[in-house]
């Protein structure tokens, strides 16, 4: 890059100051490229809306109908095919599915993460595991569940295996990166006093990265809860997702979907509040 040509000496800048405002950012190739890309994307977005094939749908009418649906969904929510306790029980099943797959995933990921951390094993092992894990992560969780459904049949077993699979790959990346944050000097210090590999892992590596590990695991738990809802609908894994599927595709009861959405929302908010409080506490004590 020809940055040098554009760099002006401080003195020159001050001389010209009266006439020109001082720039903070230099116009380099990368900033120009970013600006052109953003402009192109903005143009495409606007153009797309004008070039849609709307057929005989009137845009305004469609919007109004959608709002009416949303109003029915959220302001006229009711129970029809199930009761409050049933819904609560089903939400707990979904939570259980998320919890189980997160725990399975976390335990497996700790060991794979140790092997995938470059400072703890060799570069080759680390690159191998990270490569495989990146491939697993690239395929969506739903797809993995459907792949395992071939062997296990649609249902909770396929959902648990598939979700665990994806959780492992996600957490291995997160864990191994937090292990790699550890100062090599600490490992060296314990090695020099004759400590063994597993002693160093449990006495230095894991205590140092525990807070990161916990917050990553919590994030995965939240993701798994959302996925577990989807799995109830897509893979028949049970829980509130299945009720949602029945309400929308079988009973066509839009008001009941509203109720279910409220349940899911409440749990999601509860999880978020709990996670934030927990992390705050960890930061103080841990």
């Amino acid at each position, binding site marked *: 890059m020809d940055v040098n040509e554009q760099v002006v000496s401080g003195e020159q800048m001050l001389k010209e100051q009266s006439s020109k405002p001082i720039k903070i950012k230099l116009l380099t190739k990368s900033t120009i490229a970013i600006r052109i890309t953003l402009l192109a994307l903005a143009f495409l977005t606007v153009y797309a809306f004008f070039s849609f094939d709307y057929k005989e749908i009137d845009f305004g009418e469609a919007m109004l109908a959608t709002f009416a649906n949303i109003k029915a969904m959220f302001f006229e929510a009711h129970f029809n095919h199930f009761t409050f306790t049933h819904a609560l029980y089903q939400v707990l099943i979904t939570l259980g599915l998320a919890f189980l797959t997160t725990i399975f995933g976390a335990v497996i990921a700790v060991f794979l993460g140790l092997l995938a951390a470059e400072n703890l094993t060799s570069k080759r092992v680390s690159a191998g595991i990270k490569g495989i894990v990146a491939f697993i992560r690239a395929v969506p969780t739903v797809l993995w569940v459907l792949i395992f459904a071939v062997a296990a049949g649609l249902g909770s077993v396929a959902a648990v295996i598939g979700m665990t699979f994806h959780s492992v790959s996600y957490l291995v990346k997160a864990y191994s990166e937090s292990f790699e944050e550890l*100062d090599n*000097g*600490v490992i*060296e*210090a*314990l*090695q*020099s*006093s*004759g*400590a*063994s590999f*597993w*002693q160093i*892992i*449990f*006495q*230095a590596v894991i*205590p*140092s990265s*525990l*807070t990161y590990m916990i917050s990553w695991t919590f994030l995965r738990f939240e993701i798994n809860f959302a996925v577990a809802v989807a799995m109830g609908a897509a893979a028949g894994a049970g829980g509130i997702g299945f009720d949602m599927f029945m309400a929308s595709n079988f009973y066509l009861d839009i008001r009941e979907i509203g109720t279910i959405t409220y349940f899911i929302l409440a749990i999601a908010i509860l999880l978020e509040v709990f996670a934030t409080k927990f992390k705050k506490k960890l930061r103080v004590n*841990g």
Partner: protein
Amino acid sequence: MTLLEVNHVSKQFGNETKALSDVNFSVSEGEFVSIIGPSGAGKSTLLRCINRMIDASNGEIIFDNMNVMNLKKKELKMVRTKIGMIFQHYNLVNRLSVIENTLHGNLGKKSTIAGALGLYSQEEKEQAVKILSTLGLDEHIYKRADQLSGGQKQRVGIARALIQNPRMMLCDEPIASLDPNSAKVIMDHLRNISTTMGITVLVNLHQVDVALKYSDRVIGINHGQVVFNGTPKDITKDDIQRIYGSEAEDLIFDIGGIHAS
């Protein structure tokens, strides 16, 4: 009695960079030896070759009548438990308490499982508390390591090395990141360890005046070679010049002043 003997040791990184070439010296039991030299002279490499954190390319290193270079994994661990090491950046586990960090020095002697789970005997804990209080840290036993000042952290580093009951301590720039007061406290402790406990101390130092003041013997290294080996009294301006190269004239201390004190 000779505790450590370094014979014809050299170390090559890659094909060209020679960190150490034909280093020879020996250290007696209980001696306080400083290694001085410019940055990149090979001081840290030399120290790490002794406990095989780095494998030397050639030569032999004899510690307590054993050739460290030929040891197998298990024997090497045994030798390492007898050699304490402290570092410029302390290298403590920041999230653990002072006493946990101190007890880490015992890991090498424990079974893998007991060590990994952090199960220490009452005896070990008592010893840790005793060492910490001699180092003036009795008020900070349960503090987390990252809440301490630099000087306190280095004292925890010393405690971690001392609990090993070492024959020798290797100190890699122990005071390079400390202010003068903390540095003095640390050097006094190291000197004390050598004098009262009879532990051999080998220190890498940047500060020539400190090296001359505290050591029984000074080893000067430049370009991976020993260029001076003698008592602080014997060191001359020429020697300093040979250790630090041509800029020695500008060094910011007065060699005469140290000899006088």
